[in-house]
């Protein structure tokens, strides 16, 4: 009876399902992207074999998104610090402009911790004394249509591409790596680095090492990879923005469901009166309309899940100006479906309750 009643008004049902689908799809896509961003940035700083990332402490008055620099001599000082096994400086240039596209450039020490994760697909890796050469991430190479032997125009300089690499992290695979000296020269950052990765001699004593570094360098913060991602790259704001947009979409779909069920109650008032006359109780009438509401939202949820996953796949596989990583987790999938059902329950509860409370005589008399 629930399904047949929904099919009585095919257009209205379809539009309501579409509203739910769009809200769930948007939620899945936005949260998938923001979760993916958090994960991948954390992966960037965690998979290089370092426990801490030393960055400039956020100056008072500034908030998330601030990316400062550190003096390069700190690299040698940290390397000589007790408890430190190895250090690896990185100059991180987000938003480097070329004629073609915006992407990320990493200035690294050839053979450093950062290079370990870059699996070479073609060509060769960076070497000491290379001069202004780059290795290009596989996603960047695909998007730009460039390969080994081609040149990359970067900040007005022409740089030969000597290799193509893959790390499995979208942010890095959508960018390029070059020698630290060359990057410092091209971007006017001589004597500065963005961050210093620190590998602890004893992973158990990381917190103690952290405290020692921060005491010695009050202008610096020694962060774990998760802290770095959250504090430095505005990702918490991205996640919150994702939730905010999703919430608006979800509220709109709740209204859509509520409107559909309310109109259905209005149109079927006489039927409700008959059901009451033949002995249907209020609970059964509520269950009927709430059931229709839940079916609407469940179908919308499944369709929306498909739309959201499709959008995530498209965004993560298509090379845009900034490759968007996506994380599809069982929590995201289950959460999206549960959210769809919640939309149905919320949207349908009031009209269903009102249906059950209709006066049977008035309802039957309704034309």
């Amino acid at each position: 009876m629930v399904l047949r009643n929904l099919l009585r008004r095919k257009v209205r049902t379809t539009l309501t399902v579409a509203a739910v689908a769009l809200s769930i799809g948007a939620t899945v896509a936005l949260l998938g992207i923001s979760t993916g961003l958090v994960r991948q940035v954390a992966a960037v700083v965690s998979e290089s074999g370092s426990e801490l990332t030393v960055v400039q402490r956020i100056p008072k008055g500034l908030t998330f998104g601030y990316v400062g620099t550190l003096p390069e001599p700190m690299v040698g000082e940290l390397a000589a610090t007790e408890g430190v096994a190895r250090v690896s400086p990185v100059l991180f240039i987000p938003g480097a402009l070329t004629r073609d596209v915006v992407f990320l450039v990493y200035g690294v020490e050839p053979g450093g911790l950062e290079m370990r994760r870059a699996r070479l697909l073609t060509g060769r890796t960076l070497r000491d004394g290379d001069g202004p050469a780059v290795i290009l991430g596989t996603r960047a190479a695909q998007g730009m249509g460039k390969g080994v032997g081609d040149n990359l125009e970067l900040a007005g300089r022409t740089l030969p591409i000597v290799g193509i690499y893959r790390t499995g992290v979208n942010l890095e695979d959508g960018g390029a790596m070059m020698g630290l000296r060359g990057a410092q020269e091209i971007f006017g950052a001589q004597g500065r680095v963005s961050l210093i990765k620190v590998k602890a001699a004893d992973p158990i004593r990381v917190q103690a090492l952290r405290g020692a570094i921060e005491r010695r360098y009050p202008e610096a913060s020694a962060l774990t990879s998760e802290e770095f991602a959250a504090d430095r790259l505005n990702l918490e704001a991205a996640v919150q923005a994702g939730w905010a947009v999703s919430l608006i979409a979800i509220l709109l779909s709740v209204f859509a469901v509520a409107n559909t069920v309310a109109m259905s109650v209005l149109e079927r008032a006489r039927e409700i009166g008959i059901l009451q006359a033949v002995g249907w109780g209020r609970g059964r009438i509520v269950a009927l309309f709430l059931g229709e509401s839940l079916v609407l939202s469940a179908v919308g949820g499944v369709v929306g899940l498909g739309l959201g996953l499709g959008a995530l796949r498209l965004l993560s596989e298509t090379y845009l100006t900034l490759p968007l990583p996506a994380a599809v987790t069982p929590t995201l999938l289950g959460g999206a479906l549960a959210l769809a059902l919640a939309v149905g329950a919320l949207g349908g509860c009031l009209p269903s309750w009102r249906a059950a409370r209709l006066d049977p005589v008035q309802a039957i008399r309704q034309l």
Partner: protein
Amino acid sequence: MPHPIVILRRVSKVYPRGVVALREVDLEIGRGEFVAIVGPSGSGKSTLLHLVGGLDRPSSGEIRVGGMALNGQKNLTLFRRRTVGFVFQSHHLIPVLTALENVELPMVALRMPQDVRRRRAAHLLARVGLAHRMTHLPGDLSGGESQRVAVARALANDPALLLADEPTGELDSESGRAVVGLLEELNREGRTVVIVTHNLQVAEAATREVTLRDGSVVGDRRKVAFRA
């Protein structure tokens, strides 16, 4: 009258804005009677039926049906489920359900198992001469057929009291006669039938005629001697 099935004592119904539908009506209906309630439009006929059937509550007075005092009941759903069967002027079948499924509706409220419901619904449709139309939707049925399905639905929970509010109002004369004939048969089988009608020919089928005017009983005529 010994052991009447319906007792009304000084029953009044006043709607909002002071519209008086019934004025201190006293009435008793015996088990197995076939009563026609007649009168002009606005005389309170349908109101009386709705009160007896537990669809509405009186403003004052006492109503007892099947031994149950309706006034004291907080929720009349159970009463409607077990004691009365309604047939309305417009059949009011659920358009997305087949004839069989429409007849099953009251039994769903009783939580009868589906196979038991189906068998009983099929039996009732055969009883009203519609065994060949079980799987048809209301849109595929004629007016008379739809009303007979409504009668079958009203019988689903084997109610003691069958209440029909202008059951032939929207039917042609032939279909109307068929429906009234069905009600007569059910009455002969021992079921108490109360029919509201403004059609005097329909009223002729009943064994007792109660006339309402302006909310009061102005006539009560038994055509045959009633033995409870």
